[in-house]
């Protein structure tokens, strides 16, 4: 796998993941994914420490040169890299794999929708005039939201959407891209980089909290 031609924002260096929990999958192996801690990388080797008995059993079952996928989720997406087994030391419980150098950012989260009800205020253009309306979000992603908007808004209408996150208000502009029943879908067209990160972090925290409650 080559990194040539990929923009810097599409890659993360493996060394940034030191101390992080990652998922490891053996390509073509139906055993599933297993948690490993990233211990470090040097001299072409990435050292992973299995987290728990099942991960140790999995590591012990791997063959030399067996292809693996290492992945982790951060606020902007799933990071993934392909690698291969070098060796596993059951006494040190160290899985040594080829250091891929970088993980690719798979932009899954851009469209990942989280069912989340937030009070919204929406300003939209109607017949050349700005109309204010209230609404409630039905789902939100990093790139847009679906909402029930009192009075509705027209498809194609530019809108300004205001919502309150725990750390303060957020204002985005976007366009109405569709209706489905009472569901109005808005795609964000402009968000500041800082607000884009705030929204991504907030959604990630909510997602983790829901998963911890067994609702994710």
């Amino acid at each position: 796998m080559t990194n040539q031609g990929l923009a810097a924002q599409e890659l993360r260096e493996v060394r940034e993941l030191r101390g992080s929990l990652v998922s490891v999958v053996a390509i073509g192996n139906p055993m599933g994914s297993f948690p490993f801690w990233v211990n470090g990388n040097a001299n072409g080797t990435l050292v992973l420490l299995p987290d728990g008995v099942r991960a140790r059993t999995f590591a012990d079952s791997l063959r030399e040169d067996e292809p693996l996928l290492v992945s982790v989720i951060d606020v902007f997406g799933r990071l993934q890299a392909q690698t291969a087994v070098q060796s596993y030391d059951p006494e040190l419980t160290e899985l040594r794999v080829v250091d891929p150098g970088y993980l690719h950012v798979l932009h899954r989260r851009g469209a990942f929708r989280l069912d989340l009800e937030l009070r919204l205020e929406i300003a939209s253009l109607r017949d050349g005039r700005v109309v204010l309306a209230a609404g409630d979000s039905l789902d939100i992603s990093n790139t847009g939201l679906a909402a029930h908007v009192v009075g509705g808004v027209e498809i194609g209408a530019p809108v300004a959407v205001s919502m309150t996150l725990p750390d303060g208000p957020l204002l985005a502009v976007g366009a109405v891209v569709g209706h489905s029943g009472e569901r109005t879908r808005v795609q964000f067209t402009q968000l500041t980089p800082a607000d884009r990160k705030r929204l991504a972090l907030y959604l990630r925290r909510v997602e983790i909290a829901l998963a911890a409650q067994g609702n994710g």
Partner: protein
Amino acid sequence: MPPANTSAGNEIIPLAVTITYRSTKRLETIPATVLVRTSGAILLRFERRHPYLNPGELTALLVQLEEDGFAVLLKPLDLPGRLTVDGGREISFAFVARDDATTRFLEALQARQKQG
């Protein structure tokens, strides 16, 4: 609409727009007039002392130009701006995003202002 007479002495054809901003509790709209437009900023005149913007607080400009509607994010640059002789206020805003939406808006604005 009367001709623009800005404190900066610019003479252009004014264009009515609507600014949407978030006050302390809610989203509010206020009419404004585009006075000067550059590629990176826009000077707007408000008829009253409004809006009560805070430094760094984003506003959205929504405007219908011919058949096209536009929404762009703005950030106030020089709060509290300049008071005008008739009790209004002029405030410069920067475009937050330099993307296709902003470019198309600027082009439409320029075309509209040329038409008068």
